[in-house]
């Protein structure tokens, strides 16, 4: 409960009335229709919703990959909606860690090098070896992506995302392409980063069960937040079953 109070007052992200409209020529697609939410320091939030509900769009905006059409997004005290391309690149470089469903490894670099590519440009990174150790891959550092399983590649992606010691870790369906057993290992890695390093984490999934490992679950539908609840107790990923 001490934990919760601490989180409560220090929002890392805050969005107010965020909208996103994709102009597809003759039709306009409203991906976000006014989202108000906050992400608090140190918490692990799961964003649940069916595909097409706008959760990826929201995450992309938070991560500086995309910009909102309206409303405000603040990261700590900075207004992301007003940030230019240069500022967003700097923001991604130093503050955010990203994990995607398709692991997006650089196939020509080994696991260690895939992490090093980030640590080379970060300000106060951990060593690639340390990052890989945190996701339990210290024995696979010199393997190329083609020599790693999907789950292992995704753990390298997590190591790559957190090696820069980001303030936030954003995961978009990190287990979407994995079976349940492999998924557990990936989720455990995320959970241990969140717990061990205190990295604020937002995780997108359409899998209800995964919500049980979160501090807080936010549901989205049709571009809006429809429901939000706080778990009394986070469940360990290993206990989850689907």
């Amino acid at each position, binding site marked *: 409960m001490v934990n919760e109070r601490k989180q409560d007052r220090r929002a890392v992200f805050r969005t107010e009335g965020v909208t996103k409209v994709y102009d597809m020529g003759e039709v306009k697609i409203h991906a976000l229709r006014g989202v108000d939410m906050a992400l608090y320091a140190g918490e692990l939030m799961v964003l649940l919703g069916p595909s097409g509900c706008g959760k990826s769009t929201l995450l992309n905006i938070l991560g500086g990959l995309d910009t909102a059409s309206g409303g405000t997004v603040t990261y700590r005290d900075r207004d992301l909606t007003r940030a230019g391309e240069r500022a967003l690149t700097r*923001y*991604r470089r130093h503050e955010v860690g990203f994990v995607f469903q398709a692991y997006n*490894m650089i*196939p020509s*670099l080994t696991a260690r090098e895939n992490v090093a*590519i980030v640590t080379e440009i970060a300000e106060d990174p951990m060593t690639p070896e340390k990052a890989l150790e945190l996701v339990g891959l210290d024995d696979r550092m010199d393997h190329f992506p*083609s020599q790693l399983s999907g789950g292992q590649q995704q753990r390298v992606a997590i190591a790559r995302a957190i090696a820069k010691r980001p303030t936030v870790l954003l995961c978009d369906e990190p287990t979407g392409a994995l079976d349940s057993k492999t998924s557990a290992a990936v989720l455990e890695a995320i959970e241990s980063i969140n717990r061990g390093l205190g990295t604020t984490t937002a995780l997108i999934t359409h899998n209800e069960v995964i919500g049980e490992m979160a501090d807080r679950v936010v549901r989205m539908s049709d571009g809006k937040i429809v429901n939000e609840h706080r778990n009394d107790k986070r469940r360990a990923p290993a206990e989850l079953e689907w």
Partner: protein
Amino acid sequence: MRNLHRKLFRDVGAMKGQSAAIGVVVAAGVMILIVFVTTYDALTLTQNRFYEDRQFAEVFADLKRAPNNVAGRLRDVDGVNHVETRVSASVRIEVQGFGEPVRGRIVSLPEEHEPLVNRLYLREGDFPPPWRADAMAVNEVFAEAHGLRPGDTLDVIIRGQLETLTVSGIVLSPEFIYQLGPNDLVPDYKRYGVLWMRERGLAKAFAMDGAFNNAVFTLRPDASPERVIALVDEVLAPYGGIGAYGREDQLSHRFLQEELEQVRTMATVLPVIFLGVAAFLLHVLMGRIIRTQREQIAVLKAFGHTNTEIAAHYALFTGLIVMVGAVVGTALGAWAADGLARLYMEYFRFPEISFRLQAWVMAVAFLVAGGAAFLGAYGAVRSAVSLPPAEAMRPPLPERFHRTALERSALWTRVSQPTRIVLRNLSRHPLKAGLSVTGIALAGALLLVGSQMFKAIDHMVDFQYRFVLLMDIHLTFTEPTPERAAGELLHKPGVRFVEGYRSVPVRLVNGTSEYQTSLLGIDAESRLRGIVDAERRPVPVPPEGILLTTYLADYLGIRPGDSVQVELLEGRRRTLSVPLAGVVEEPIGVSAYMERRAVNRLMREGPAISGAWILTDDEQRDTLFRELRDLARVDGIGLVGDAEAAFRRHLDDTLLAFMGIVLLLSVSIAFAVIYNNARIALAERMRELATLRVLGFTRFEVSWILIGEVALLTFVAIPAGWGIGVGFAYALNQAMALDMYRVPFILTPWTFAFSAAGVLTASVLSVLVMSKRILRIDMVTALKTGE
């Protein structure tokens, strides 16, 4: 299928940059073939039609003087179809308002009818009326150069006598298609002209009443020219015949043949090189474009399209691009060929150009370009359809990489990750990288071929006019003149130095090889006529023995120490055996040299000269010309500076016009290849680049991965292109050695720099075009899974 066709056009539209680049390669290959073959065809066709129509002679004979009744005996020579006996005289012409010396030749026309051999083609006005001694026809080029029209008059000095003649008409002649003065390398229309008069008037003026000094023959279809020549020589020997000769030794025809031969060589070598390169590039480029459509092919298959339908779709896709390229190439080729043929017409005067696009040429061009593109497309489509749809639709599995030898070195640890990406991407696909390098190198090679020719020609002309022809004025006398005439010239205004020379027409024979040229007798230590070897070192003129240009010695198959038969074609004709004392290197002309007194001894004459070379002061030139013109024994006055300018202009208009086209197409190909390479690299790396952007890399840092790849390929390709280009250039150079001139095989740093600069420029432009696309990378879309 209809929608599949719609996709076809949209795909071409969506990939317009790449499609256009492929189109450029096709167009360039097709254009080169069409340009060269069509120009060659147009020139030979025009030549043949004109020769036939105007009854161009097949045998020619010059003699001192024979009475007209000898004509009957010539007509009776076995194998002769028609004979025209004529009076032909070298004259000096004074054109009002033109201060410089003009030389000319005046040829007689039968009194009352048009000639049966070498008939004139009337362009304007009329032929000289019969029995009129003051009318003449003028060759078109000369009339054009001085703006002469029928009714204008010219002062013509025949045998020192001034005659004022009126232009009755302007004509063309098969005999003077290439109107070249003696000692000239290229036509100089202002300073040399050909005129025609009726026989009686000219004979009278030239003291040839009732006689002739020139005869031209057409032969019966089954006659052998060699035999006719021998028989004619027999008839004319008592009349100072200096040896009849066939068409191949007729000046205009020979030069025309040489030029045609040059075009023919280029028409063979260059299209082979270009189409070969284009075919290779099409194969590679088409394959790569289709490989980027892998997922689409899978979707089409998933919808139930058969492999054949898909193959047909991409065949059409390829066909569309090739067709557009080939049509553009044909149109441009025909347009350029027409233009080039017209340029040649400035030098070769025909009444009209017979221009045609031959079906077989187009067929060959289309087949080669199409075949190469389809082969490239076929391989790519086949590998795409062989995948089960589901597998092809999934994002491609991470490619397998492994460590290379390079990575074991200590330096590797200092290589940044992005650079590692570049190096591993290239080493992962050595074949693909090799093909890219080869493609770029070929483009660079074509650039080198084109630029080498420009430099080499410049070098050749420089060599001729800075090391060989060192005089300002080249004077020819009407007949051999005592040596002291040279001394007299020294007192003329503005003359700084004079050197006499002796020039004798000869036929050089070794076994079955023979060559008709002039034997030039020069001072042992000539100051105005350089005799040099390949390294431009002076070659001493020996007191005895003959010197030949390397080309001529090779042609006759003799080496220093061997002897060559020298048939003297002037004065009392004799044949002597003369030892070859050495060889000299001269890119232009095919001459033989001896010491001047040695030539006098061969001729069994005193110290005579045929002309003189003069160094002058520029300021007093006009006065000098006036005085020289008044000298009765001066036949011709040649200005070396003018000749050089005319020669350069000629090369610019012919050979270099072709090479200009080659160069332009090389640049287009270089750009097309490099752009396409970079563009496909971008498509292949899109996901990686987007990932790096997400990880916080700046656009510039991301660009490095692509730029680094293009740069590395370019740097490897440049020296490779040099190597291939030197090979191509050498092949072309060897194929193009001509009698008239031999372009030296010269490689200067400039040539290499030009090829490298062309490739680099194309790379930089490609990278610039692409970096725009890198700036636009949409991270969200690029990273979506399998959509």
